[in-house]
């Protein structure tokens, strides 16, 4: 497992943000880890541990105060096309139909959408299970369906890397479980390097190859856990002893006091 080639590398990354009153907050401190090619990495931690900062660093939306974030051994100095992002809220555009939302990144970047692009968008809608909804208005869709549209939108430019910032945390519990399995299916059909941010322990264990457990304020890597559960994973995975043992272990990690 350790022989995998890394796609994303964090090396001693420190991130501080200036506040309006002049003081600084350290969001991340000495963060070092790699993400391998087509690896599914979950980042788990309480609120305020800088999880979303990790995502924004990879996306090139912000740059580290110290250390480097690199993709394919190149330091990230600007936003990159080969990254798809799915946010906690679907944030679809109400003035476009579903297909228009999926093709929006192309329209936004190049100003036009070709017939071939639309065909590709339809394929993606089929992939996320929304073939029949291409011309629906987005406010006619449920929250889970809207998030499927957001996933299709993130996949439009065929990115190598998929960044997901608590994508299912705004959904109800049943839809959330369903979306987890859907994501695994989509990921097996379109392998991507995935960074998946969550604060749900079962979700992280079910989905990920590895889990990074973070500490809060400042965010540090507390533990990196290999999830050696067989794939493909299914509902049966949830009742495996190894699944529960791992979840319990992480729970113990998160709920003991941090010794600095």
């Amino acid at each position, binding site marked *: 497992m350790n022989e995998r080639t890394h796609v994303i590398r964090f090396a001693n990354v420190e991130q501080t943000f200036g506040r309006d009153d002049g003081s600084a907050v350290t969001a991340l401190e000495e963060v070092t880890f790699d993400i391998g090619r087509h690896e599914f990495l979950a980042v788990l931690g309480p609120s305020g541990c800088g999880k979303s900062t990790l995502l*924004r660093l990879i*996306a*090139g*939306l912000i740059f580290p105060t110290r250390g480097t974030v690199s993709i394919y051994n190149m330091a990230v100095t*600007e*936003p*990159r*096309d080969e*990254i798809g*992002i799915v*946010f*906690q*809220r679907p*944030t679809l*555009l*109400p*003035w476009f139909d579903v297909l228009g939302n999926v093709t*929006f*990144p192309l*329209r*936004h*970047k190049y*100003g036009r959408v070709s017939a071939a692009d639309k065909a590709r968008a339809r394929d993606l809608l089929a992939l996320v299970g929304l073939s029949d909804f291409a011309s629906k*208005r987005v*406010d006619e869709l449920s929250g889970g369906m809207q998030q499927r549209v957001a996933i299709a939108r993130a996949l439009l430019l065929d990115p190598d890397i998929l960044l997901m910032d608590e994508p299912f945390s705004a959904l109800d519990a049943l839809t959330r479980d369903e979306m987890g399995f859907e994501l695994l299916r989509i990921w097996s059909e379109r392998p991507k390097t995935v960074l998946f941010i969550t604060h749900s322990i079962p979700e992280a264990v079910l989905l990920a190859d590895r889990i990074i457990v973070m500490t809060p304020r400042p965010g540090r890597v507390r533990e990196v856990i290999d999830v050696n559960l067989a794939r493909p994973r299914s509902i049966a995975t949830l009742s495996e002893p190894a699944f529960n043992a791992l979840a319990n272990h992480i729970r113990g990690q998160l709920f003991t006091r941090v010794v600095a």
Partner: protein
Amino acid sequence: MPSPTISAVSSSPASSPEAKTQIDAANSAGKPGRPGVWRTWADRLAPAAAFIVLICVWEGACRLFRIPSYLLPAPSAIVIAGLNVTPAQWVGNIGATLRVALMGYVVAIAVSIPLAVALVSSRLLSRTLYPMIVIVQSTPIVAIAPIIVVTLGASDLPRVFITFLITFFPIVVSTVTGLMATPEELIELSRSLRAGRVREMLHIRLPFAVPFIFSALKISTTLAVIGAVVAEFVAAERGLGFFIMFSTSFFKIPQAFAGLAVLVALSLVLFRLCSLAQRWFVPWSLPKSER
């Protein structure tokens, strides 16, 4: 400001027909076949009926208590006074007010929306211009209207400018609010695509501001009419504002009321047209119940 109440009245019958049908179904169980037809009609006619009752009470009170027409003319007296004014006079006065109001309104839109975009795009501009805009808004326009007329001379220009001053502020404020209300995630998405600030504004921020802009445009239709009338009070030889002033100064109070009624009707029509434009061009910007 009459517009919010007007909008509530005019939109409520359209907004909840489903809810009413359910109530009807419950209430008219004894009338199979066409449940709720009577209720639906009652619902539609209720605003008009209330208005008619009000007019009747007004008319009755004027006759019963012999209120002199220079204090409060009866509705019938107002209608008669209105009919005594020649159609050509009406058309001339309405046309003059409408022209000033619409020109001021269009100028206000043309200035306000780009100004709002500039305010949102640049922190420096925002810090420099916003206080000035607030100062202009805080100045009682009625008080400086005579000065504006002196400065800009006797033409439509001062009247359009006064209308503009009264109209532009809500549009600026609402547009800025709308542009700032864009979800942060979409801005990040735009930046991650390196689409550029212009596309970010055109493809994301401005469309997101449309519901806010239309709220302001609706309010501003009535403000534009008010602006035109204020300008006509100060300096005009035509227009509904002038007509009301003129009628009052000759103690033709019923005629002044007729002018007022036409003015209200004009505001209502403009407000309605603006609502229809929104429903026609950008239906997604309306709440689901009002589409």
